């Protein structure tokens, strides 16, 4: 049976063995942290600039005259029935189909 004391003792024994020297110092981490901060600021600034440019471009695109709503539309004049040319060899117009029961 594994007891809690066994686990504690194993951890303590491992700790007593010592450890390799640290490969990093607080100054290294501070330097690295400052670099990360600068990079984040640059990324944020670039993102804000990109967003502002996109908003301006979208505004310009919407404001262009060809994208405005078309003016009043008037229906075209119907052609005069006498002006329709019917070729002489054209087949006769079919009789309109009437619904059953209607005379």
């Amino acid at each position, binding site marked *: *049976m*594994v*007891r*809690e*004391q*066994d*686990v*504690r*003792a*194993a*951890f*303590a*024994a*491992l*700790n*007593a*063995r010592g*450890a*390799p020297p*640290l*490969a*990093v*110092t*607080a*100054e290294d*981490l*501070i330097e*690295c*942290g*400052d670099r*990360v*901060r600068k990079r984040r600021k640059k990324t944020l600034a670039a993102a804000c600039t990109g967003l502002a440019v996109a908003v301006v471009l979208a505004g310009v695109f919407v404001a262009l005259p060809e994208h405005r709503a078309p003016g009043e539309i008037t229906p075209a004049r119907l052609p005069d029935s006498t002006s329709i040319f019917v070729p002489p060899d054209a087949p006769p117009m079919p009789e309109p189909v009437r619904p059953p029961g209607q005379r």
Partner: protein
Amino acid sequence: MSDPIWNAEFSACFDRCAGGMRFTTYLLCGDWHEAEDLMQAAFLKLYLAGPRLARREGLEPYLRRIVVRTFLAERRRVRWRRERVTDAPPEVPQDAAISEDKLVLWQALGTVPPRQRAVLVLRYWTDLSVEETAAALKCSTGTVKSQGSRGLVALRRILGPDFADLPVEV
């Protein structure tokens, strides 16, 4: 622009905690190089979060929480990588400074799932209470109890019933 007061506090915290924190991480991951990487990542997160911290007097528990969560997040991430880090500790102590029973226990601990191992390390190495362990792992006290119990059961299953009869000496 970095804050010189925070830099001084951070340096003092690093000098005070780095060794212990790296050993805790070593117990979690079983590899000195990985432990160093995780410890660096945790200290870097602490450094970046520092100016936003309302209270800076209790940095050690906060740092421990970062270490454990970074370790667990890393273990979740490696599941999806092609290069897999094995659970078995790659650095096996080989000198006579550690007795055989502790060596066996250490190797067995490497096969326990990461979350259960984290509970065992926090409870039996850093001597955190169940509540403190739950806060560090961001889970309930019931989960800590069950994970710790399962961790011990797993060790028991791996080591067999004769382990307790071995002499325990530091």
